[in-house]
């Protein structure tokens, strides 16, 4: 733990998070959230997804504004490349989740962060999605995240922060563990 004269501030309101944990433990139904996105096909492999509303704390909630994402594939897939690929968005989701966790855990542990940078790489053999080799899975063979963190802390403290961030990450859990997926036609 760092000892500094100024209070630690990574911009994370840990007191609010701890308060929420206590309040939601007492009122478990409010802890049930539903996250949503909607998607409209444009053309070819290009689609546009938006997120706006979600359910939680026992009520319907709204983002400050709606956020849009163009999703497509690059030209080497004979597509027009109007946006990131879906698998890149998974990487974006994972590293964004882990980085939010790094900031929160560091705040909670009194570690002042000066900069946090991460790269994330997902290795994939596309023979899987092309249906060319039944032995090859569609998804990533493995994912590697590398953090560069400048902070008032020892390397061991930072390793513990990064490990705890994985332990508490929703997307890390989604990616590493099975999830039931239901797809149906309305």
């Amino acid at each position: 733990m760092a000892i500094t004269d100024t209070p630690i501030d990574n911009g994370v309101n840990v007191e609010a998070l701890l308060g929420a944990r206590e309040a939601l433990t007492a009122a478990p139904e409010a802890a049930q959230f539903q996250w949503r996105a909607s998607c409209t096909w444009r053309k070819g492999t290009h689609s546009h997804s938006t997120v706006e509303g979600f359910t939680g704390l026992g009520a319907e909630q709204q983002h400050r504004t709606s956020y849009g994402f163009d999703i497509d594939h690059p030209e080497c897939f004979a597509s027009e490349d109007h946006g990131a690929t879906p698998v890149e968005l998974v990487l974006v989701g994972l590293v964004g989740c882990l980085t939010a966790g790094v900031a929160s855990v560091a705040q909670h542990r009194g570690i002042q962060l000066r900069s946090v940078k991460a790269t994330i790489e997902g290795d994939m053999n596309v023979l899987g999605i092309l249906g060319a080799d039944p032995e090859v899975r569609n998804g990533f063979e493995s994912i590697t995240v590398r953090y560069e963190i400048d902070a008032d802390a020892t390397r061991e403290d930072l390793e513990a922060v990064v490990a705890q961030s994985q332990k508490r990450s929703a997307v890390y859990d989604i990616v590493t563990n099975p999830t039931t997926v239901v797809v149906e036609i309305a």
Partner: protein
Amino acid sequence: MQTTAVIIGAGHAGLAMSRRLTERSIDHVVLERGELANSWRTERWPTLRLLTPNWQTRLPDLRYEGREPDGFMAVTEVIDFITEYAGIVDAPVRTGTTVHSVRAGGAGFEVQTEHELWRARSVVLATGACNRAAIPAVAGGVPSTVAQVTPMTYRGADELPEGGVLVVGASATGCQLAEEIRQSGRPVTISVGEHVRMPRTYRGRDIFWWMDRAGILDERHDEVDDLTRARHVPSPQLVGTPERSTLDLNRLRAEGVRIVGRLGRVVDGVAQLSGSLANVCALADLKMNRLLTRLDEWATATGVDVDVERAERRDPTLVDRRPALHLDLRGGEIRTILWATGYRPDYSWLDIPVLDRSGHVRHEGGVVTDAPGLYLLGTPFLRRRSSTFIHGAGADTDELGTHLRDFLGGATSTRSCVR
């Protein structure tokens, strides 16, 4: 039948409480469904030994005085120890008396046994935290060609079918049984979730010597930062052997055990395993090193470090670059699954609304505040970190015995003696 207090369970905790009530001149009876130390006689595998060393195995009025203070009691020795204790404290035990229900009634509680009805002002639940093996719901998807056993039914590797064994869970039980089954020549795979890694000895002393001396085992329920987490910490990867050797995933790997991630679910007979193995191992290594650093700091501050060996760190846990993510349970490679996924208490006979959503008794340090006069013993971190160890019953029963006496006296509120 009328008495002042009924203690349910004649294991070490119930008997220690009996001793505390006798000392306080409180009329009571100890009801036991089987014999003394019943779960040790009927629900433990034969090669099991205590995790705590003999010198630490003590109860009020009885301590180990044999020739191997650094050894670890086998099941039969534990049974003898508890049986001897019942005689020493002259506990009023009624064996062969199964309790069918406990409910509020009269001026306190009504305890219906298979033989009779007891009325008492106070009831102490000393039935322990390990009445049932906790088997995850995913077990429902396991093909019928695979045998399933739990630590409560396991009686030795030779009784398992020939062929591969998947041990699910890598706490003390899972690691011990993975090693034992591997030594029988069977191929063993161990599925590893969050776990607690700990060396058997550190700087020449048993790890429990360190935690005892440094006060870690005495940390109280009202002192720790996060009691919920503290009550759910898995048992450390330890084994009590004459060699005092350290049991960890690196040792299992060297012995030929395959290490895989947490079991997520079983779909069409294929077990899906978590990709989080590297992180759960990293967390366990970091946590172990934080404990050892804390012990080093304590040794320096108290001057103990002149009497012990040099500080050292164990190798990080080795993890395959690409651990298996699937196990086909239909192919015959795995013939048996051993669920070392923890234990649950069984309060199906407790007709008092004091259970939380997960079936555990709500309490404050063993005082069941929603049902004054009701007490709990022997659950993880009941009052202190040592509460599940045999020696932990000494202090817990002393404090709760005093609380119970004050409750009977009616002079104080139910919260007065929780501290």
